């Protein structure tokens, strides 16, 4: 490959920085999730997050990145294979000729999105999925669910993007997708033994708080980096991320204070994440005032949504649906209401900004399409894996803990029975 073009250095630097920040979100998620499970399963869930970095990186380079961003094969459904192996990147990505950043930087940035989206699913399957089954699940899911969705929305040639659907940083591809894919998997996988009667309380809320902080830090790269260049839209996306995280945090905590008397630390961490989930599709398209409102609404709504699993009896262990699915839907609807061209001329005008119903209906269409597609295809994948290799660990392994059964390790070896010192 010859270096055919000179790309804008500051834009390239911005996107590379964003890629590093988004990568950092996955170990952040490992801490966020790790703190919420019991001590016997903390390494298992952290390993599920970490292994996603390895698996998805390879699949993205080999096939996925090209299927997402190469020239459309027809109908806006899937890209081709010219970019497989990260080849053919001396020219701008199809439809993205306005981007000043080096195309390889854009590809590696997008790779990090796929990694964290796969890792998110582990929040639903926690405490009971076989390690090899999780790997097979995310590999098939990446190729059959993530890749098509990312092409439809993130490639300008995808059918949803072509219709005019707006999604700044992945309200559909990352958030709604992870939420509804997780719901499908946990319906096949079944509940944890003893849930919801037995106490399965978080073993270390401090780990979760640290993880939420790292997610927050990384989300600046996720949202502001999605401008793919150093410009005013990036600054707005950065700012809106902070605002929605702050009001999401406040919303969740206020809800708890009135509902259960105690504002909890885990609630504060969850609220910040919920706020950032909802602002993800909106980040570069709405005003800072709208971002404050969207974050607050997400904090309140997701605090309610995580309780639904107790009512309906699906064991989404760490609330991927309640936080990412519901927060993502809220974000897409909010974008249809509050998008304004005064922030981003390449954006649109929402229903409440005088733009009529056009954009709102497009956002609803994209959100619904994503939810249905992600749920349906993931359900089939999970069912197929369950019938062939089996998804669940044995009853004994589940009782002993997956750290020992799947990895022959213990997270905390000081004290405890059978071991001194």
């Amino acid at each position, binding site marked *: 490959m010859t270096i055919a073009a000179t790309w804008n250095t500051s834009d390239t630097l911005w996107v590379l920085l964003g890629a590093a920040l988004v990568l950092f979100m996955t170990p952040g998620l490992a801490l966020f999730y790790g703190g*919420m499970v019991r001590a016997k399963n903390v390494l298992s869930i952290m390993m599920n997050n970490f292994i996603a970095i390895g698996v998805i990186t390879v699949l993205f380079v080999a096939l996925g990145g090209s299927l997402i961003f190469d020239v459309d094969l027809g109908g806006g459904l899937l890209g081709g294979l010219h970019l497989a192996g990260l080849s053919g990147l001396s020219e701008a990505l199809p439809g993205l000729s306005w981007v000043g950043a080096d195309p390889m930087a854009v590809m590696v940035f997008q790779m990090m999105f796929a990694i964290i989206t796969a890792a998110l699913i582990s929040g639903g399957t926690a405490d009971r999925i076989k390690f090899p089954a999780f790997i097979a699940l995310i590999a098939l899911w990446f190729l059959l669910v993530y890749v098509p969705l990312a092409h439809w929305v993130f490639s300008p040639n995808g059918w949803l993007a072509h219709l005019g659907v707006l999604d700044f940083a992945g309200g559909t591809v990352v958030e709604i997708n992870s939420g509804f894919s997780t719901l499908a998997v946990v319906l096949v996988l079944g509940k944890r033994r003893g849930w919801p009667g037995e*106490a399965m309380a*978080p073993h270390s809320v401090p780990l979760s708080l640290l993880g939420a902080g790292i997610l927050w830090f990384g989300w600046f790269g996720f949202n502001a980096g999605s401008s793919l260049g150093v410009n005013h839209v990036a600054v707005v996306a950065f700012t809106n991320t902070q605002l929605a995280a702050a009001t999401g945090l406040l919303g969740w905590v206020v809800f708890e204070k009135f509902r259960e008397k105690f504002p909890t630390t885990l609630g504060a961490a*969850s609220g910040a994440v919920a706020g950032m989930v909802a602002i993800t599709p909106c980040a570069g398209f709405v005003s800072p005032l709208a971002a404050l409102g969207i974050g607050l609404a997400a904090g309140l709504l997701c605090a309610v949504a995580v309780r639904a699993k107790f009512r309906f009896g699906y064991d989404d262990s760490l609330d991927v649906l309640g936080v990412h699915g519901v927060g993502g839907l809220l974000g897409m609807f909010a974008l249809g209401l509050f998008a304004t061209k005064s922030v981003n001329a390449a954006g649109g005008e929402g229903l409440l900004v005088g733009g009529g119903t056009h954009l709102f209906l497009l956002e609803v269409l994209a959100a619904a399409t994503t939810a249905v597609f992600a749920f349906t295809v993931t359900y089939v994948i999970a069912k197929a894996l369950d019938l062939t290799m089996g998804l669940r660990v044995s009853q004994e392994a589940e009782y002993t803990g997956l750290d020992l059964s799947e990895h022959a390790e213990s997270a905390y070896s000081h004290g405890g029975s059978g071991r001194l010192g």
Partner: protein
Amino acid sequence: MKLIVAVVKPFMVAKVKDALQEAGVVGMTVSEAHGYGRQRGHTEVYRGGEYDVEFVPKARLEIMVGDERADELVSLIVETARTGTIGDGKVWVMPLATTVRVRTGERGADAL
């Protein structure tokens, strides 16, 4: 010889130790314990899910003393560890058949 066992609130350990030391007690064993009495456990809430914590953290002190000092030291522990609220703990006394100091092999009262 008597074995005094006191289960008290964890933050009372230092205060009880100081009081016993001042009264001439030269050694004790402290361990972390969990249990419940009339106070029962408490409830924790995580993302709206309620979890009953049935066993509350406590500290368990063990002191070996001569028969003549047992009543006096029990009273001292009780007075020192009392807050007046539920969950203050419990103290009990058991007869001690023998004691041995590992270093010297001394037995009985000499090993206290």
